[in-house]
């Protein structure tokens, strides 16, 4: 499809360009600036969460407790997950949504720009709360130990925790509000701000992916907020929602948590699938295979994802009927997942591929995410899961799902759009080195965890018996290499922002094939105010 639009939007007389200095950022209502802030926030949190991961791998390098006490270790495990999920993947995906959705659908900005500002600025506040929750035992001695529950915050352990837990709860509240506001904004933008000729079925897959993501977030975030509020009441106001001694039920919290938590994994996954839906056709120079099937597939995934939460709780002792239901539901998720992966493979099929960095990540995602799907089906089988549950096997499964499925998708997006965002081409050679370095070290880190898990190593332990030593040594070495590779990532980004070869409007040859967005009709970087007149998709 070809596109006609005005390139010269910015000669508009009242179009005064960005405000100067700090006000540009603090008061920003511009979707590109807010998108940039989201992305930098996510980048910062990537290193913060990554530092905790490095600590975890250092502690597990050898049997014995070497670096700190077990409570501190568990605190790092807890906050590593919270930071990566809420502080890194979600904001990075939201940053891309902010930057790209208006550009793709031909809108001048998000539908609710001031709300957009608020939903971003809640994040740093939440991050401060989270940091306070780590520091609480030292800042306020005598108020209890670190938050040591793991990211699932399960009571009764979370009732025993000190005031660090209260800071964590407040952080989750703020993160949740931020996500809900951002989601409302995204849904509204997609429904109301499209250029008149941009019908829903012409939208790029990334926009569809975020549409479902946002709906999921609006549906499940309040449930998490409710659950942690009940936790707060149990901790301080004498209620017993989760205390059997007072007539409550500790398992109720798990149901509430996972009613949020399972859809959450699709919240992390879908935006990256959206990126794949652009990257693969671009570099295969061929339209997306099964565009409609992908859109419906994502819809089915979102719906199914909301009714299988208890597969995280196969061992809590549900009725035979309920367990069977959750098992079959979960196994069926492999249908939309398989359909998606098939569509990407057939997009490459009979194409004409080149292997720029985003494409390399795209191919790696398809391969490694399939593997996560396979271990996912293994886990879905209840009696077998009764063996795997809470072992390193689960850790391996969800890192194969989340690092390729979510994080690599974000990297693919970063490299795909960096020329558009900055106006400069990144260094392709360094990009490729970064790809091989992360992918290989990722596999060295997490593949052995399948074995240590099957052999029986539990997750969230600070110390292990020596039969697991070899697997952990390999994992730790891989982990350090994986961590180190991100310094190169940082370097590439800084280098690209600071200069380099000028990027054309359409940096990728194939980016106009199939269902592309309108972003390629704008210069790189796009003007501060874009699409002040609605473009026309022909």
């Amino acid at each position: 499809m070809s596109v006609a639009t005005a390139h010269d939007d910015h000669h508009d007389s009242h179009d005064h360009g960005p405000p100067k200095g700090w006000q540009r950022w603090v008061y920003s209502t511009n979707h590109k600036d807010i998108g940039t802030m989201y992305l930098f926030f996510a980048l910062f949190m990537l290193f913060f969460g990554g530092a905790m991961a490095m600590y975890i791998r250092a502690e597990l390098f050898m049997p014995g407790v070497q670096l700190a006490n077990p409570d501190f270790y568990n605190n790092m495990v807890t906050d590593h997950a919270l930071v990566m999920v809420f502080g890194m993947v979600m904001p990075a995906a939201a940053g891309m949504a902010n930057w790209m959705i208006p550009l793709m659908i031909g809108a001048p900005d998000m539908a609710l720009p001031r709300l957009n500002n608020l939903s971003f600025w809640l994040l740093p506040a939440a991050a401060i709360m989270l940091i306070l929750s780590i520091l609480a035992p030292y800042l306020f001695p005598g108020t209890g130990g670190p938050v040591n529950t793991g990211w699932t915050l399960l009571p009764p352990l979370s009732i025993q925790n000190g005031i660090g837990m209260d800071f964590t709860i407040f952080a989750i509240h703020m993160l949740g509000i931020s996500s809900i506001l951002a989601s409302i904004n995204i849904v509204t933008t997609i429904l109301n701000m499209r250029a008149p000729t941009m019908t829903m079925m012409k939208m790029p897959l990334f926009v569809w992916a975020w549409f479902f993501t946002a709906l999921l977030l609006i549906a499940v975030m309040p449930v998490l907020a409710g659950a942690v509020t009940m936790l707060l009441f149990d901790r301080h106001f004498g209620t017993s929602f989760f205390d059997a001694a007072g007539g409550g039920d500790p398992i109720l919290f798990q149901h509430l948590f996972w009613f949020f938590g399972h859809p959450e994994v699709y919240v992390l996954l879908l935006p990256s699938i959206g990126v794949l839906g652009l990257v693969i056709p671009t570099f295969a120079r061929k339209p997306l295979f099964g565009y409609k099937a992908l859109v419906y597939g994502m819809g089915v995934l979102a719906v199914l994802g909301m009714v299988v939460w208890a597969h995280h709780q196969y061992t809590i002792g549900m009725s035979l009927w309920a367990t069977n239901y959750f098992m079959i539901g979960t196994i069926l998720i492999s249908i939309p997942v398989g359909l998606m992966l098939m569509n990407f493979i057939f997009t490459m099929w009979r194409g004409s591929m080149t292997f720029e960095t985003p494409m390399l990540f795209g191919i790696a995602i398809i391969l490694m995410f399939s593997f996560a799907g396979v271990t996912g089906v293994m886990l879905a089988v209840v009696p077998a899961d009764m063996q795997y549950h809470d072992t390193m096997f689960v850790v391996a499964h969800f890192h194969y799902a989340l690092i390729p499925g979510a994080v690599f998708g974000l990297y693919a997006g970063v490299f795909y759009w960096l020329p558009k965002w900055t106006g400069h081409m990144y260094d392709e050679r360094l990009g490729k080195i970064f790809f091989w370095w992360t992918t290989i070290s990722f596999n060295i880190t997490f593949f052995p965890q399948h074995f240590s898990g099957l052999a029986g190593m539990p997750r969230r332990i600070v110390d292990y018996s020596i039969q697991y030593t070899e697997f952990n040594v390999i994992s730790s070495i891989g982990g350090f290499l994986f961590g180190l590779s991100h310094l190169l990532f940082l370097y590439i980004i800084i280098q690209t922002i600071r200069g380099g070869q000028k990027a054309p409007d359409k940096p990728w040859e194939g980016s106009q094939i199939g269902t592309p967005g309108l972003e390629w009709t704008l210069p790189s970087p796009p003007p501060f105010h874009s699409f002040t007149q609605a473009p026309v998709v022909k």
Partner: protein
Amino acid sequence: MVSKNKTGLPAALLLLPLGLLTGVARADYGYNLPEPAATLTQEIFDLHMLTTIVGTIIMVIVTAMIVYALYAFRHDKGAVPDQEFHNSWFGQWAWVLVPVIVLGIDLSIASSASSTLSSVEDRSKADVTVKVIGSQWKWTYEYMDDGIKVVSNLKKLEPTDPLYLRDVDDPLVLPTGQRVRFLLTSSDVLHNWGIAEIVPKKINIPGYINETWTHITKEGTYRGQCYENCGAGHAFMPAVVRAVSPAEYQQWKTERKTQHAQAAAEASSDKVWAKEELMAKGQEVYTKNCLACHQAQGQGIPGVFPALAGGKITNGAGAAADHINIVVKGKTGTAMAAWGPQLNDLDIAAVVTFERNSWGNTAGDVVQPKDIKAAR
């Protein structure tokens, strides 16, 4: 078992497909689930191998397709993109074909899984019933029909020992060839009693009872641990079962009962104990039950577990009554358990006496079993 692991990742990568495709359980290499030693875990193991093999085949197919595509459809080999591929016959029907194939695989896995699940949930009459109670941080086993109680604590070993973190002072003893039913519960937070060779996991929930079972086929010692994060001591909660022949099991039971009877008689007799006796016994009880949190020198862990050395309740000025009270009743909302139901009067008297007179504490008083009885 341990030394063979040295082959590391390359061997692991090679062995995975090999081992899995030939269906060989590489239990001694520790790459797979441990070799099952019970009827039920055998059934689960077979199911696991089924899904692993199906998964491996799918991965091989997916990988082959991608590798072929990367080879055949590359720009620099002059491949011309087929812009109409998605409109071909295949493009029109693939969205039905592929899901139908996947559905077929799914349903055959699900039906086989469902029948194994029914075996897991089978509630036939058991020969032996054991209540497994998790607490921070040890396991207590109660034989429901015999009034025997076994408390399993981590056995402290050097990190170089093959059994580091895998051994306990007093394992659970079970007969082979009989149906054993486990009732799982907890006294404080969630725990999860897991021994893969003999039993599928169900979690231990305070205030609730979960059920699982086993029928052990091979004599031997089976080792597992706690699988649900239960706080600071989570890594230090091994679960060990010694499976013996039914005859040996009977003999063990008789011995235990005699020992129990003697200990109970001793604890409840109105005998007044000498301070030295109480101190010696108290140290034993402390090491077994209290040390994990309050530490060897009673220094606790600042901010997490209170120090007993120089503590307000445990030292000179504090009344022994408060001290006894917190040990017997615990402190709700914290990791401090109520020890009243777990220890007898003599044990509590001994440990309180020990705490009040160790690590520089100068209370000097001696607490007798009858004081505890009165405080209960």
